């Protein structure tokens, strides 16, 4: 036989789990609808089968090409140097994520250059320099207040001249509703192309895992300004679940590449869809 309808109580409970994980009401209702449709079609036997269906439907919304196996720090791409530009709103963990990525690439035998293009926030350059020292990779910098595009240009030039494998450019945190600051990002990106025509190869948008529905607007606006190609979700070592990324990944078709799980050098993982979905239901 099997059941073709999910109990209201189960659906209510599911709604609560998803909403309190920051999935958002719209995406939550979509997920519930998908499950109801699927169940009316396929039927299910017992709770464990229903749970499996549920997780499958949630995972299906996370954009493709982001299975762990495809991201390899020892061979990030056939581009050399491979240029990653890191963007996001204030305080989400951009600089820290760069430190962690540099550590991973270096460990995988790659030569890495960092560019301190946050020339605005107090001691942002020093912070990246300390990460550079920790990991043992060079940091290209200029004075505070100098043109970030010029720092990016310098970084690409010297990394290229030194035959580097990976370049990661830090940028100042900025709220996505500030038009001038968003235009500045577009400019930084364009200037890079004077040195390496197809750079940046990756624009990594960093989202704070404790952020709520505003992350949607962040993804929308940063994508407009810089064509974001990948997401990193930080601070998932806390109690926040980062569920908003499900709707974002689905709507903008941007894969999640990394998650941040702490403040240390090693606290970065390649995103694993199933584990992430599993963690929502814990």
């Amino acid at each position, binding site marked *: 036989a099997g059941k073709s309808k999910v109990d209201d109580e189960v659906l209510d409970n599911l709604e*609560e789990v998803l*909403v*309190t*994980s*920051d999935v*958002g*009401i*719209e995406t939550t209702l979509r997920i519930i609808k998908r499950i109801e449709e699927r169940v009316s079609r396929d039927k299910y036997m017992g709770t464990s089968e229903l749970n499996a269906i549920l997780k499958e439907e949630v995972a299906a919304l996370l954009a493709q090409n982001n299975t762990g196996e495809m991201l390899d720090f020892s061979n990030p791409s056939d581009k050399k140097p491979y240029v990653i530009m890191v963007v996001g*709103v*204030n*305080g*989400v*963990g951009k600089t820290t994520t760069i*430190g962690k990525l540099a550590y991973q690439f270096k460990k995988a035998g790659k030569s890495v250059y960092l560019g301190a293009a946050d020339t*605005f*926030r*107090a*001691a*942002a350059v*020093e*912070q990246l*320099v*300390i*990460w550079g020292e*920790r990991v043992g990779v060079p940091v290209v910098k200029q004075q505070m207040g100098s043109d970030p595009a010029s720092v990016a240009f310098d970084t690409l030039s010297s990394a290229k001249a030194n035959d580097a494998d990976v370049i990661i450019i830090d940028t100042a945190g900025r*709220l*996505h*509703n*500030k038009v001038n600051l968003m235009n500045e990002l577009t400019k930084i990106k364009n200037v890079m192309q004077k040195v390496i025509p197809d750079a940046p190869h990756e624009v990594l948008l960093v989202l*704070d895992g*404790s*952020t*709520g*529905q*505003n*992350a*949607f*607007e962040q993804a929308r606006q940063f994508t407009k300004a810089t064509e974001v190609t990948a997401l990193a979700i930080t*601070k998932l*070592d*806390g*109690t*926040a*679940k980062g569920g*908003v990324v499900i709707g974002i990944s689905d709507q903008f078709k941007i894969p999640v590449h990394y998650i941040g799980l702490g*403040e240390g050098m090693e606290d970065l993982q390649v995103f694993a869809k199933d584990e992430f979905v599993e963690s929502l239901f814990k």
Partner: protein
Amino acid sequence: MFENLSERLERSFKILKGQGSITEINVAETLKDIRKALIDADVNYKVAKTFTDEVKEKALGQDVLTSLQPGQLMVKIVHDELARLMGGTTVDVNIKANPAIILMSGLQGSGKTTFSGKLASMLKSKRGKNPLLVACDIYRPAAIDQLKVLGEQIGVPVYAEIGNKDAVEIAKNAVKFAKQNNHDLVIVDTAGRLAIDEQMMKEIAAVKAAIQPHETLFVVDSMTGQDAVNTAKEFNDRLDFDGVVLTKLDGDTRGGAALSIRTVVTKPIKFVGTGEKMDALDTFHPERMADRILGM
């Protein structure tokens, strides 16, 4: 993505026009809409539920449906209730003692260091204080430098002990230093920490016990989602803080966390951060916050 709440409610009320006053049955759909709007604004799931239940009690029996724009009337009920919950008597920051000691707390990246600078600058220029900033973040790379740069910008000295890895000791020494050097205000910046990080929560509790601050502030990012309640509750259980600072309101977040936090810890929101610059702070306006949550 959001539809203005009053438009949404206007629509659901159209169906009900002519039914007289609000009853359990005819208000159900409307309340669902309100609840959705609150969740869209990042109000905590449970808080939103409780809130709509209370609004229902207020609305039942009211002659809303014969009014010309019942949706707007309902929005007003919701708005006023939101403002009431987030408001109450405004409590000033406690700087009467000499030296008055203020301790910052909060998650990583919420804006503690920036706010420490802003508050020092404001109390210096508007209240004639002679502040001392204290760098008790011994973990984050360049945290001390960051505070020093800000201190320089606003002309406030920064107390730091390079190499000392004991935040409690630094804080105690700083208070001693302040007393010896005629600083009537001490603002202690601390490292960001997760509420579930037992060791770090113990550290800040020990700092608090050692220096007995007159004001402990919980600094929270206004973009925070559902987890705001857990964090606020945990920090409050450990620190019994006196007030909340809501940062990054210059963005376009709806800021529902403000309501969630107020509801779970019943501590006043004392300041808001409205930018990265040292003068970008404001006092909290519950009416404006209610507008914002409702997308008005």
